């Protein structure tokens, strides 16, 4: 099988190369490792734990909303639950999800490098994550947080809940994100395999490159915003709190300058995963490589110009609102190009219905709805009606959970054999995809209707005319939970009793498939040399003019 890169000696040379999982034993070897794969696995375990915590909070919120009035908890507890759900899901799960876990594991392998550029900084990034996470858990213990994950002043500067420990936790998590970003940027620039030019890099690497750009450029602004918020609560400096002469809309500018680009930090790695999955599982070169690569960086760049669309009705001047609305539509074009290219990639392919491919189809369905509903919120007149209603809740769940999380699951199934060395039960995997698809749509499509009919966000009780829709949505959330539990069972079963995975179960062409599963500690016995593009599959019939016989 003429692979993309010949290594000097056969892949199974001297046996002394132990897999990175068994090379060193004991907890200490894990906690002090500088091996990017181990750090990736530790990140994976931590973020899945916090996904579970955030998910439980979501379930409590949805159960409370089953009927108007009190079902489960009081007002104050409900407010803390939705804040907890938002903050944990954003800061502790979805921002680090693909870059820090899958990215850490896969990036050096895809580049043919031994490790990331700064291994010690990579471990420091994980420990900053752990400290930030502990501060968040401390927040729950110290009386919770009821400001919403957005910490809007003056509510956040006047409420009595423990805002300081939560904001300081988010500040520390910012360092973890910045270090990952710096690490990946330098690794991609300086440590590519010989022969791997920029147009021969896998699209996952392009996506992680664009993501790291945003992480480095946007995170410091939320860091200073959170510090100023802490100073405002302690010293009473008058920047955000109107009682002290500040301007709350200024806080929203500071906050969204980070928080909109961070939604692209969340989705861009998902795009990278989907580009990899679509090509490998339909055995075809990507359609429009340069278009997808450049659109990742374009999204990262334009993403910095559009934050004002979160503030159309928030007291922003109408001139600024118009400018932001126009630029928001500019960012929709590169995203559309990507979705069209993925679908065009399937043309003339030989699609293998593996679990990752199931998740690709689920992603295309859910993310398309998420992306298209963004158009409603970008148009000024409709956003006045839809802002801060369940329409927005449905929109961002479709793009964040339907987009990033589904791509994360797809990527997890795709690279699971590589970094655990074990296959998983395909039937269970596909079942989880189907259940997640059904549960997700039942939960969140109803919320579009709720929102357009005027149901506001973050409501503990609601008026009777919204009752049936909330019931459907809550039932949907249970189906979604079932689907996620099936996925969890699949992974646990695979860890316990999955059969040994081959080095290249999906016959991928990118470099990570040219080493054992699980890889040896220094990834490659011999430095691989990249001779051709990442998606030159043997099945591609170069002679045919595209007609498939």
């Amino acid at each position, binding site marked *: 099988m003429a692979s993309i890169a010949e290594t000097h000696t056969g892949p199974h040379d001297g046996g002394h190369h132990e897999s990175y999982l068994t090379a060193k034993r004991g907890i200490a070897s894990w906690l002090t490792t500088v091996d990017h794969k181990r750090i990736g696995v530790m990140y994976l375990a931590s973020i899945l734990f916090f996904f579970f915590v955030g998910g439980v909070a979501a379930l409590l919120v949805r159960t409370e909303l089953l009927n108007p009035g009190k079902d489960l908890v009081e007002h104050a507890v409900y407010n803390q639950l939705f804040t907890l759900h938002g903050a944990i899901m954003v800061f502790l799960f979805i921002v680090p999800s693909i870059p820090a876990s899958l990215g850490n594991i896969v990036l050096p392998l895809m580049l043919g490098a031994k490790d990331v550029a*700064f291994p010690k900084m990579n471990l420091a990034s994980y420990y900053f994550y752990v400290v930030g996470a502990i501060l968040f858990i401390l927040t729950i213990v110290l009386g919770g947080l009821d400001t919403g994950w957005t910490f809007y002043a003056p509510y956040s500067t006047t409420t009595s809940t423990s805002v300081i420990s939560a904001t300081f936790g988010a500040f520390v998590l910012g360092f973890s994100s910045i270090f990952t970003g710096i690490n990946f940027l330098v690794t991609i620039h300086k440590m*590519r395999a*010989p022969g791997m030019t920029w147009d021969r890099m896998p699209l996952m690497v392009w996506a992680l490159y664009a993501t790291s750009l945003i992480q480095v450029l946007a995170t410091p602004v939320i860091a200073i915003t959170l510090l100023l918020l802490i100073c405002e609560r302690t010293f009473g400096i008058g920047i955000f709190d109107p009682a002290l002469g500040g301007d709350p809309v200024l806080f929203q500018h500071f906050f969204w300058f980070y928080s909109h680009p961070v939604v692209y930090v969340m989705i861009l790695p998902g795009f990278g995963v989907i580009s990899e999955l679509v090509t490998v599982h339909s055995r075809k070169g990507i359609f429009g490589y340069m278009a997808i690569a450049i659109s990742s960086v374009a999204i990262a760049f334009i993403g910095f110009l559009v934050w004002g669309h979160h503030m159309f009705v928030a007291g922003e001047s109408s001139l600024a609102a118009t400018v932001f609305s126009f630029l928001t539509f500019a960012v929709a074009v590169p995203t559309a190009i990507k979705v069209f290219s993925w679908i065009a990639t399937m043309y003339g392919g030989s699609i293998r219905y593996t679990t990752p491919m199931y998740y690709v189809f689920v992603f295309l369905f859910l993310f398309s709805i998420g992306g298209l509903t963004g158009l409603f919120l970008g148009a000024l007149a409709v956003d006045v009606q839809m802002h801060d209603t369940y329409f927005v809740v449905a929109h961002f769940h479709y793009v964040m959970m339907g987009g990033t999380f589904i791509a994360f699951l797809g990527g997890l199934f795709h690279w699971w054999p590589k970094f655990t060395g074990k296959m998983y039960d395909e039937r269970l995997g596909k079942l989880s995809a189907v259940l997640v698809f059904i549960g997700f749509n039942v939960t969140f499509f109803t919320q579009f209707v709720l929102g357009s009919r005027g149901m506001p966000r973050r409501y503990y009780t609601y008026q009777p005319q919204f009752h049936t829709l909330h019931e459907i949505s809550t039932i949907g959330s249970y189906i979604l939970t079932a689907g996620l539990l099936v996925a969890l069972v699949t992974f646990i079963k695979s860890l316990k009793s999955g059969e040994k995975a081959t080095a290249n179960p999906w016959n991928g062409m990118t470099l990570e498939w040219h080493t054992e599963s699980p890889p040896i500690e220094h990834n490659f016995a011999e430095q691989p040399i990249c001779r051709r593009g990442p998606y030159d599959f043997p099945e591609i019939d170069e002679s045919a003019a595209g007609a498939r016989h």
Partner: protein
Amino acid sequence: MSDSHAAHGHADAPGNNSPFFQHHFVTMTQQASAAKLGMWLFLVQEVLFFSGLFMFYIIFRYLHPDTMLWASEHLLDKTMGGINTVVLLFSSVTMALAVRAGQVGNKQHQVTYLAITIVCACIFLCVKYVEYSHKFHMGALPGHFYSYAGNIPGEPQTFFALYFCLTGLHGIHVIAGIIALLWLMKRSARGDFGPTYYAPLELTGLYWHLVDLVWIFLFPLLYLIH
């Protein structure tokens, strides 16, 4: 942009035999340029970090020019600011010369220049201490703690919040710089740095020049307002 090809090219590339050569790199040149790019990205993050406070400055100056003019003229001492600027510029030169000494491998120069840089940084902090104690004494403090006798038009407590945030954050970065410089001096004294390995010197130099850059903008913006 990795340079030499297969593994056999390891030994003879310059600096590859240095004890500080990280083996996941192919050559020392690659390691040095990776370290420098990493540092520049860290400096990018620092610029954006300070940008939040400069935004606070722009908004405050746009809304309360009178407060800023009055408070800056009466309570901020131009000469102290000027001294600090000269001290920091001088420390920037000595830092750059320390890096140069590392490049040529002159251990003695490295240590002396680093020592002068640290001394200058301490002088900067002492001058800051004098300025701060003057303000504490006058009660010109941020937010709730503001109790200055004279009446300043507009929002004086927010101006001093801005002043203390800007100069305080800059001061913290100067302190972090001093700690890094002390660590560097220890390593220089041990003779770690030479023509093929001086990355820590260079990176701390870049960081120190950025701290100086921030002060170059802080000085006119806070002290010399008209």
